[in-house]
C-alpha cells in the first residue's frame, strides 16, 4: 500500500517504513517530524496500537488497515487515530488516503498560520503598553523620587519577561532553553516577591546548577506565588537541597525542595495542578504551575508534589544537574 500511496501523491514526500518498529525508530531519529502518519494494522509487524502509544498526541495518525472492521475502527479512534479509512471499501484506496493526507497537512498549515498571527497580535498588543509604562516611569523619575517607582519598574520587568515567555511558547511547540551555570541562591532572591510579608527560609550552601536563568526565575517565581496565594502573607516557604536524593541518578544530579506551611494540596489533586487552566484559588490564572511543569520538562528535570512536615505543600525537583 505504501508504494501505491507514494505513486498517487504528487506533492507530498512519503517516507515508507516496513514495520511498526522501523516506523517508531524513524520517529525517534528523524530530524524533521512528519506532518502525519499512515499506518496499517496487521500484528505483529504492523501494530497500530503500539505506534499510537508512541507518537506524540499532536501528530495525526491515519489508520488504514488492509483488513478493517468496525471494532478496529472504534479501538483505533479511541487510541488516538485522527482518521480511520478502510481502503478495501473504497473505489481508489490510495487516492482516498492521499486526499486525507493533503487535508490534514492543509489543516495543520492553517492552524500554524493562525497561531503565528495570534502570537504576533499578542506580542504587539502587550509589548506596546509595556513600553508606554516603562517610558512613563522613566519620565516620572525625573519629577519625583519614590521607592514605589522601583517596585513598579520591577513589576513591569516581570510583565515583560512573562510576555516574552508567552510569545515564545505560542511560537514553539516546546520551550527552548539554553542552559548555563546559575547561582541558585541569587536567582531565588531575585524571584522572591518584594511586596510580601511571607518568610523565605533558604537552606545553607545552595549549589550552582545548570539551567536557563530567566526560566529558572520564572519557575521559582511561580512556585513562590503559588504558595503565597494559597497560604497568605503569614506563610513560610523553605527551599533547599534534598538530603537523600534519588540514589539511582548520576552523582552530579541533586534534588531540590520548595516547601511551605500553607494548607497543602489534596493527594487526588496533585497531578491535575500542573494542567493548563487548573486553578485552586479565585486569584489564580491556571497558568502558573502548568508553566512550571513545562520548564521542568524543558530542563529534563522531574517534579513531584507531596506534603511538607507542617502539612503544607512540598514541591520536589529531581535530576537537577550541578554545574
Amino acid at each position, binding site marked *: 500500500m505504501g508504494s501505491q500511496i507514494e505513486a498517487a501523491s504528487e506533492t507530498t514526500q512519503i517516507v515508507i517504513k516496513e514495520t511498526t518498529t522501523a516506523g517508531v525508530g524513524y520517529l525517534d531519529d528523524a530530524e524533521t517530524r512528519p506532518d502525519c502518519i499512515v499506518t496499517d494494522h496487521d500484528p505483529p509487524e504492523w501494530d497500530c496500537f503500539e505506534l499510537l502509544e508512541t507518537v506524540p498526541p499532536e501528530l495525526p495518525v491515519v489508520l488504514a488497515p488492509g483488513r478493517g472492521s468496525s471494532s478496529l475502527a472504534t479501538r483505533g479512534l479511541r487510541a488516538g487515530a485522527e482518521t480511520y479509512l478502510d481502503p478495501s471499501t473504497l473505489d481508489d484506496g490510495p487516492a482516498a488516503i492521499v486526499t486525507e493526507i493533503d487535508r490534514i497537512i492543509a489543516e495543520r498549515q492553517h492552524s500554524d498560520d493562525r497561531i503565528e498571527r495570534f*502570537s*504576533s497580535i499578542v*506580542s*504587539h498588543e502587550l*509589548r*506596546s503598553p*509595556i*513600553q*508606554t509604562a*516603562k*517610558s*512613563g516611569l*522613566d*519620565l516620572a523619575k*525625573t519629577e519625583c523620587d519614590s521607592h514605589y517607582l522601583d517596585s513598579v519598574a520591577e513589576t*513591569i520587568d516581570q510583565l*515583560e519577561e512573562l510576555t516574552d515567555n508567552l*510569545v515564545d511558547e505560542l511560537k514553539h511547540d516546546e520551550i527552548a532553553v539554553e542552559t548555563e551555570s546559575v547561582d541558585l541562591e541569587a536567582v531565588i532572591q531575585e524571584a522572591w516577591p518584594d511586596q510580601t510579608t511571607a518568610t523565605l527560609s533558604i537552606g545553607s550552601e545552595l549549589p550552582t546548577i545548570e539551567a536557563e536563568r530567566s526560566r529558572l526565575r520564572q519557575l521559582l517565581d511561580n512556585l513562590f506565588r503559588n504558595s503565597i496565594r494559597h497560604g497568605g502573607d503569614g506563610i513560610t516557604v523553605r527551599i533547599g537541597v534534598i538530603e537523600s536524593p534519588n540514589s539511582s541518578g548520576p552523582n552530579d544530579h541533586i534534588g531540590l525542595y520548595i516547601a511551605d506551611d500553607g494548607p497543602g494540596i489534596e493527594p487526588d489533586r496533585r497531578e491535575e495542578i500542573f494542567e493548563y487552566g487548573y486553578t485552586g484559588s479565585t486569584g489564580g490564572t491556571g497558568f502558573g504551575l502548568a508553566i512550571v511543569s513545562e520548564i521542568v520538562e524543558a530542563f529534563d528535570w522531574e517534579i513531584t508534589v507531596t506534603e511538607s512536615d507542617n502539612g503544607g505543600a512540598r514541591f520536589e525537583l529531581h535530576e537537577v544537574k550541578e554545574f
Partner: protein
Amino acid sequence: MTEEDRKTILIVDDEEMVAESYELYLQDDYETIVELSGGAALMELDQREVDLVLIDRRMPGMSGDVVVDHIEKWDMDFQVIMVTAVDPDIDIIDMPCDGYLTKPVSEDELVDAVKRAFLIDHYEDLIAEYNQLSEKYEVLTSQFSSRELANKDQFTDLEAQMEEMEAEIANTADQFSDSKLSDAFSRLH
C-alpha cells in the same frame, strides 16, 4: 563635542510619552526633535538636516514602513532605526533601515543602538575614504618603480595617511560592543 558637532536625531512615535522618554535618554548627547506621526516626520525631514531617525513601525495614518520607503526613494543619507513592538519577520531584510529594536526598550538598549548606528556610519565613511586612497596607491605603484616613488614626498604622505587610516578603521571596529560585529569588521579590512 561642540554644539555644532552634535548629531541630530528625529524621534517618531505616536505615543507621546514613549517619544518623550527617548528624548530624555538621548538629549544629553544629541540634538533631538520629536514628531508624533509619519506625515509630520516627512515634513520635518524635508526642512531639516538630521543624522538619524528613530521610528515606530505601526502608527495611525502613515506607518513607519511607508516613511522609511519615502526616505529610501528620496535618497536621504542618514541612519534609520526602527523601534517597534512588531516582531521582526523575514521582511526586515528588504526594509531600508540600519537597526531594528523590539519594544519595550530600555535606556541602555536605545542609547547603545544609536551609538552603534553612528559608529557604523563613521566606519563606512572611513572605508570609502580609504578605498579612494588605495586606488591612487595602486595606480602609482603600477606606474612607477618603488625607488622612484621613495623620493616623492607626496607618495610618502599617502602611505602614512593610509597607515593612519588603517589604524583608525581597526580602532573603530574594536569599539563595537558586539564582538561578532567587531570580528566581522576586522575581517573586512
